[in-house]
């Protein structure tokens, strides 16, 4: 545990390009470690009252960058859909890769952003002792976030979203219709208020 803490400290406070990859590999492989990194950064920022008013995640760019960086590993054209399990570790690595070359302060902030999720009650109560001191404040901060982001990784909720009523129930038809609906909503200019957007957010991934 102590060794692990030292590595995290290395990652968060004082790492260099030479050893960050090894630490990142461990963090990528261990969900608990990811939560711990996130907690540490949250706690640190709460204690220092540095939690940013606006967190600019650049989320899409990160997803795109992650995928683009993984691209050379796959045959041309095969990245487009259903990322294969073998590609996942590479993607995960790429997800963290941009952090490596940045200045310490900036990279710490980025790691925080990448790993930060609104805290669940079960994640706020930890064994590292530091949490209890500011638990109330963390809870308060966590409560300010959009509820939708607060689904823990392990949660599996029975979806109640919209579903297609299909004459032909083949998965291929369903998949095509989902893709078509997203593209249609995106490229059409129908003036029906929020309904088209709500429809996309409402339907099941199926």
């Amino acid at each position: 545990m102590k060794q692990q803490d030292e590595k995290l400290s290395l990652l968060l406070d004082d790492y260099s390009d030479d050893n960050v990859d090894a630490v990142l590999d461990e963090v990528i492989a261990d969900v608990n470690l990811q939560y711990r990194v996130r907690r540490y950064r949250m706690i640190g920022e709460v204690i220092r009252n540095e939690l940013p008013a606006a967190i600019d995640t650049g989320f899409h760019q990160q997803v795109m960058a992650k995928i683009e960086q993984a691209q050379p590993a796959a045959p041309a054209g095969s990245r487009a859909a259903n990322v294969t399990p073998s590609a996942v570790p590479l993607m995960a690595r790429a997800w963290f890769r941009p952090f490596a070359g940045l200045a310490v302060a900036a990279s710490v902030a980025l790691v925080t952003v990448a790993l930060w999720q609104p805290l669940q009650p079960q994640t706020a109560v930890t064994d590292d002792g530091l949490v209890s001191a500011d638990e109330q404040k963390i809870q308060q901060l966590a409560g300010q976030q959009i509820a939708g982001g607060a689904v823990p990784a392990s949660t599996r909720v029975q979806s109640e979203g919209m579903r297609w009523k299909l004459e032909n129930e083949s998965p291929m038809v369903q998949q095509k219709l989902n893709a078509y609906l997203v593209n249609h909503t995106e490229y059409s200019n129908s003036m029906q208020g929020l309904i088209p957007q709500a429809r996309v957010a409402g339907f099941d991934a199926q």
Partner: protein
Amino acid sequence: MRSSNLTLRSISAQRKVVARMLGAMLLSTLASVPVIADPAMDWVQKMSDAMRNLNYQGNFVYMHNNGLEGMQISHFKDGQGEKERLISLNGEAREVIRDNQNLTCIWPSSRKVIVDVSRTNSFSPIFIPEAIARLEKFYQLKLVGKDRIANMNTVIVHIDPRDQYRYGLKFWINEDNGLMMKSSLLDENGEIIEEVMFTSLEFFEDADKPLIDTMPPIDDNFTLVRYHSGDSSKAFDADHAWQLSGMPGGFWRESMLRRKIPDSSDQFVQQMVYTDGLASLSVFIEKNSSLTEDSVSSMGAVNAFMRVYNGHLITAIGEVPALTVKQVAESVTYQPQ
């Protein structure tokens, strides 16, 4: 002299005729300019502007197929453009994030994510005056009263279709700033098919708000359902040999694009988008690999008709009645020059 008087009278008469003709022509010209004088149309135009330009965050309910979902929307606009985040508050926290570059849909429990290119003007669509003026031919717009939604005063605009090829709409528009507070999509019997209504809403002066930027919990166990990048996000020249003859009156082609199908090297899908200013539908055409017969699908107000034709799969899909998508899909033909 008499002859001279007759000539003068004749010239005077001709001048009067010419003046009348000019007057008539002027009136005719003025009539063809899209002037929005109808108060109902004014409100719709105001709503269109407000939905794109205001910074707001609120919760709303979305009713469909006898189901009810809570959702949250955050919409901000700054110098860099618009950003919008939509989250389902019930069941799975489905999420749609859109900025000027990308459209991302996330299903956290199913662990799926879609990242796609976003169109700059795809937030809340813009109502152009010409389109509003054209609407009158196919819809009747009228102010039908006032109401209070989410503790805010609204005016109600009812848009009634003049034929069976499109749905009706009702908008509750914020009296102070024009934001749409509630909207209902109505079928041919006036029954509600889908409805959204704000239950709480907050406006912000500037776009400097943090909530839209919170991080969705994406990890490496997520499956990328579909992703357009490189060639698959690039638009290729559309194949103009695809023609359709069954489009109902009032619809015009808004765009036509052709992209590579993700996960394929030489397969293309062509999309043709049509709108009448209110409703819209798309026709997708791609090589058919497995379907053997036509099929009908629907989800809420969205209807789709898939047709197998000449080795291709033709799909008409949109927020229009089933009759419309069927008629359109069945009218598609391939006519090489």
